């Protein structure tokens, strides 16, 4: 039915469509709005609305049941910023970000470059490296707590293979309580998250690597460039958009470190706040102290920190994000 109608119609159809344009346009508008209305309403309330609401709450002394009690201006913000525990949280989150982001990006890039070669089992290796990222943070962190417990397998294996003298140089005991020791807790979380996320970054980098035209590599090979020179002078610089994307996603994620800190160190980020992060502080303020106004202030501060970090990266990479 469709084919003959279509075949007969073309000249007339064009005229008809032009003449009915206003009505067709209106119908298209209507369809467009109807198609997007549910998500837009949800975002209006749960994203834009809640952000405005968070700013509002953060300016008041807030009663759990009755809501606003007294206008405080920026007092909640001042309370947060002067709290030594919050300062510790900021320091910890920044330390985590500064160590974890480059480390995981480097592993991800390294894996991407190897897996992008003509190797056998390419699909298998890609799937294997992404594998830890599919499990839940709760399951993975519990598993790591077990592996890095004082009597866990990690300590036992290094005892058996005789590398403990090496660890002793760094002041690490044979039965080190990795997550329960102030000096090693955060680094253990960094190792855990580097392990789970390097595969994700590998996939991001692979997408970016595949956008580099192969002619460039052919030209480099003809000029006799070695593997390292090719990487340093061609691959790495041409991956700039990839670096920017991965770094932005990584920093945003790193500044929101929470799950592993709570599961590993409880609501106070034990031991001695070594695992206290900005988001754990926010959670603790809201859920344990039930101080909603102060928690909202922490949320706004976090948002400002994340926006600033993103803008700095944009400057560093000299490029606007695609969005």
């Amino acid at each position, binding site marked *: 039915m469709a084919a003959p109608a279509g075949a007969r*119609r073309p000249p007339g159809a064009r005229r008809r469509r032009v003449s009915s344009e206003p009505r067709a346009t209106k119908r298209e508008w209507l369809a*467009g*709005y109807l198609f997007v209305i549910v*998500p837009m309403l949800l975002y209006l309330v749960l994203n834009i609305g809640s952000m405005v609401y968070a700013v509002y709450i953060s300016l008041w002394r807030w009663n759990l049941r009755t809501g606003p009690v007294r206008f405080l201006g920026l007092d909640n913000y001042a309370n947060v910023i002067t709290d030594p525990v919050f300062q510790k949280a900021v320091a910890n989150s920044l330390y985590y970000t500064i160590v974890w982001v480059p480390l995981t990006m480097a592993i991800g890039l390294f894996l991407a470059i190897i897996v992008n070669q003509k190797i056998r089992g390419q699909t298998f290796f890609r799937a294997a490296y992404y594998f830890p990222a599919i499990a839940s943070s709760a399951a993975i962190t519990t598993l790591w707590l077990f592996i890095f417990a004082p009597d866990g397998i990690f300590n036992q294996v290094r005892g058996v293979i005789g590398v403990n003298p090496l660890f002793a140089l760094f002041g690490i005991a044979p039965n080190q309580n990795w997550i329960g020791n102030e000096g090693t807790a955060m680094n253990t979380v960094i190792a855990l998250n580097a392990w789970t996320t390097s595969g994700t970054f590998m996939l991001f980098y692979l997408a970016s690597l595949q956008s580099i035209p192969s002619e460039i590599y052919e030209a480099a090979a003809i000029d006799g460039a070695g593997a390292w020179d090719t990487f340093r002078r061609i691959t790495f610089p041409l991956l700039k958009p990839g670096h920017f994307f991965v770094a932005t996603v990584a920093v945003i994620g790193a500044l929101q470190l929470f799950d592993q800190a709570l599961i590993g160190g409880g609501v106070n980020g034990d031991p001695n706040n070594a695992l206290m992060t900005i988001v754990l502080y926010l959670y603790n303020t*809201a859920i344990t102290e039930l101080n909603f106004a102060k928690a909202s202030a922490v949320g706004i501060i*976090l948002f400002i920190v994340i926006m600033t970090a993103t803008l700095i990266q944009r400057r560093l990479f000299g490029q606007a994000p695609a969005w």
Partner: protein
Amino acid sequence: MTTTASTVAARTAAADPVGDPSFGWRRRIAYVVLIGYALLMFVPFAWSVLTSFKTLPDSVSGSILPSPWTGEGWQFALTKLNPPIPTMLFNSALIAGVVTVTNLVLGSLAGYAFARLHFPGREALFVIVLATLMMPDQLRLVPVYLMLHAVGLTAGVGQYVGVMLISAVVGTSIFLIRQYFLTIPRELEEAARIDGAGFVTTFAKVMLPLAGPALAAVAILTFQGTWNAFFWPLILLQDPGHYTLPIGLLFFRFAGGMQNDWPPLMATVVMATVPILVLYVFFQRYFVAGIAATGIKG
């Protein structure tokens, strides 16, 4: 394994125009690194499975295989937790299932509209979609809780609804489906439109059937993300009977304090991971494609 690696090395070395003698060795080292790192990915999970069949003293004794093999850890995890693991599995599956469906339906409608339909304000609305991806969830903790509380969605069955609403249609779903629709030639739907099909028919009969790969990626990423979700379920599921597995696992671990009962904890870890593992084994390419697609933004 060695033969495979070396034959590949030999073959590629032969094909290598420069004939660099170190090439085969380099390749061999590359395989050692590749396989070593792959083992590092799997061994911890294998360890959790083995441990779940051990007794508590055996679990920290350093023995590789359980001696004796025991189902006590599993029995404890399945019967002694509050809520029981079957309840948590049900809660996780219910929430993840509903959220997957809403993301598919709402995400494909909106993704199509943003890719193809013209209406005033479209670009501005799409910027809002992308902006939601930048916004830290924690900023919304207090306001979202207060709003859901005000409409009665923080008690009873409402707790499920609250968690579902928060992830009913995430920006990534709309974005992924829109990007996919942008790659489909316009001629297909123009033909349908000339035949007099309306917007809804064109979308449902012509465009949606073509979006299979994008829908599969969104379905899998959403199901996995929701199954594993930690933050919002932790905030919004207050009553233990409504806990999902990750939340139950957290409180199970806290309940032990420093005296962790590893075998049942590991049994719970295995149960929380296996459903996603099964999905991954069967639909691995959609996981990888979906993640890669979020990486090629714009």
